[in-house]
């Protein structure tokens, strides 16, 4: 299967933690010391007079981009449940086009 990237349109990421819990269930990660994806928080700080407050979910080395789900034609568990619908799994070759469509404030992970 073609290699995918995880795109996070973090201008809309609300820090809801659904991706973390979805991954925990999907990958059956019971220990609270391990995680498949984890939120990072920046701010709120005033930068050049405007509030800057962003969350970005960062996949860990345990993330396989839900390969088995992708093979079944499903979205990865985190993407499927993301409350802000700000995550997507995109084939590597299509990443530049999708990035151009999404505009500013997007992170790309190739876990």
């Amino acid at each position: 299967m073609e290699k995918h990237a995880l795109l996070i349109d973090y201008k809309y990421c609300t820090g809801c933690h659904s991706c973390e819990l979805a991954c925990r269930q999907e990958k059956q990660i019971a220990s609270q010391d391990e995680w498949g994806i984890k939120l990072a928080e920046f701010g709120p700080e005033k930068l050049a007079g405007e509030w800057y407050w962003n969350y970005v979910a960062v996949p860990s080395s345990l993330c396989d981009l839900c390969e088995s789900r992708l093979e079944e034609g499903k979205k990865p568990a985190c993407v499927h449940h993301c409350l802000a619908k700000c995550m997507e799994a995109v084939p590597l070759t299509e990443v530049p086009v999708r990035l151009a469509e999404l505009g500013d404030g997007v992170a790309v992970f190739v876990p």
Partner: protein
Amino acid sequence: MTMDKEWRVEEGDLIRTRTCGWSPPGCHPVGCGMFIYTDKDGNFVKVEGDPDHPITQGRLCPRCLAMGEFLNHPDRIKYPMKRAKADRGKDKWERISWDEALDILETEVRKIWETYGPEAIYVSKGTGREATEYAPPMAQAVFKTPNNAFMMSGASCYGPRTVIGDFLLGAGYPELDYAAFFPDRYDDPRYEVPKYIILWGKSPLQSNPDGFFGHAIIDLMKRGSKLIVIDPRLTWLASRAEFHLQLRPGTDAAIGLAMLNVVIGEDLYDHAFCDEWVFGLDELAERVADKTPEWAEPITWVPADVIRGAARAFAMNAPSSIMWGLAIDTQQNGAQAGQALLALGAICGYMDVPGGITLALPSSFMGRWTYETLQFVGEEVEKKRIDGEEDHPAYAVGPYAHPDSVLTTLETEDPYAFHMFYFYASNPIAPTCYAEPERWYNAIVKMDFNAAQDCFMTPTIMGLCDLVLPVSFFPEHDGFVLPHFGRNTHFLGAMNAAVDPGEARSDLEIDMIVGKRLNPEAWPWDTVEEFFDAQIHTQYDWGFNDLREFGAFQQPFEYRKYEKGMLRPDGEPGFNTPTGLIEVSSSIYDDFGEDPLPYFMEPAMSPYSTPDLYEDYPLVMTTGGRSFVSFHSEHRQIPSLRAIHPDPLVTINPKTAAKYGINDGDYVLIENPLGKCVERARVTNEVPERVIHAEHGWWFPEDDPEAPNLNGVWKSNVNRLIPMYKVGVTGYGAPYKNVLCRISKADGYEAGAADPALYEPRASRGPESMTNGPSQPASYEVIHPE
């Protein structure tokens, strides 16, 4: 978007059951669509969001994604348990059969009926959960008592907003139009995206309030909606808003009056709509003529130009919308804040138009049934409800007991003594509803008999109860979801049992089981399916099994219902108010001793109403902000959720924290003349320098469960700083989100510990000693001088 007819299918080795979520564990009636996977033995395997659900479209919040952890939690209450009255507060529970539990409950209730009368039984109800539908019938159609309520002081949750809606708007619950009624949602040709959305005292992402799917706000932001956020906190949404009115907590009415001053003064309102559908605009215009943004600035701490800019943007960009939040309820002045807010939406012409504020005729079969169960109380006993009628006639119009008057009655035994409390989906001594919780605890511990139904052992049950019945989680029972509790309900969702509940039963099932013992004439149904069929058939020609096949049934909807006679039971055009119009000046408040027009009143404890106190307690404390991973006092024992949010947090501005030598993560003692508690510092710009936000709902399931510690329920109990009986003239609204406090660094949670046996009640039942504002406050002593 349509949902499959098949709601239960085999998928490989697993069985997939579709359901819509509600509670327990705690949630509002959001009705998120999901599939529950079980194995051939009926064990839970996993949960997955249903992509075909019209509102949630596959998305789930972290609480439901932790479903396996609550279903299989070792601490859940799995069977009925009893404990000797002498052992209240001790962990000496004994497993019993349902039959024995019912025998005990029946015997105790009949004893109270015969000795004191049914009114001596009190049902203390929790918020938002399925219990909202089923607790009042437990009181009225099972125990035959007229006394039940959600127990925040001033009924400060939802009640005030719905009652203002009833009195002034006459049209159910006004809700942001997020195309929720349309199968094609935002793509429906009738729909328009709101240009501005005012989020007023509301943080919908975390709270999914009343059944509104919070992240619909994100859907709309992606489609171009801009935000005006009125909130003392810089929420994540506020950080993305065009206008953030970061007001001093409790001054919402002043903001509302100033926005009306701009909209009316600059002639930005919808004349055509007002001419036809608004009552009292001239009086309102006169009232707000001098309430300029410059008048509001020193009161609210919001710069005048921000208020003016927000008012103009809202009025000049049709359609726009408003969402009102809990903060409207949690202040004495809330009825007026809500009145100003409704007036703003109305005069701008945004009521029931595409992209505006949807309205509904507030009737539903479930609401009707809940209300009709009052017949089993009987008129004579109904008159004995402790509803504060003498002091708050506006409150007594409704069917609920008045929490502040109930506490007074508990302490004075006037006009009669209570003898039994029943806790229904509620852990009120944890800081969720009871203010001054030690007073409640000390009064209730004296009852002859207390019982509860719940799914986890709580400090309330451990401290006070003699019997507990086990409640099933929603994946374990059939039911249905009614967003907005029937007051503006975009869909009806089917809830299908997927997992074996063991001995646990749903709230409705417990009502039926206990009801068949105590008052069988009210409970003719043998199964919940029969019950639901009977209720649904009063409105639709299909039944519960059809609803299972629909999955989520989106109700028919039309805009501008007031033009079509769809908002009044008599079918006449207009609104269901005495004048048939939206009343921006009330035609009935006079009868309740209330000002017909909105006014501003200082909170009971504030920098300006109690300047002496302010010298010693120089910070304004707000409370109640929600987290994604809990529902009020619930979810504290769910490992993955607790790991995300392990401690009660008090949010402090970096400059304020530095002033008091407090670092992020430090324990902080928060005190005022009423009490104290300890939380841990979250030092951040989310609050301004003069305001702190302290979390509610905390207790520690991992701590010693026995009294007086009760899982540490007193240590981080922010409601110990909140007064009872500081309510508005209507009897509604209380200062949960606007009191004074001071902070200092502490060594640990122990600095907040307490033993209610050592509690010294304040000399006064109502803290009017802390008020030198206008004469509205209605405390017990003011009204009943000795």
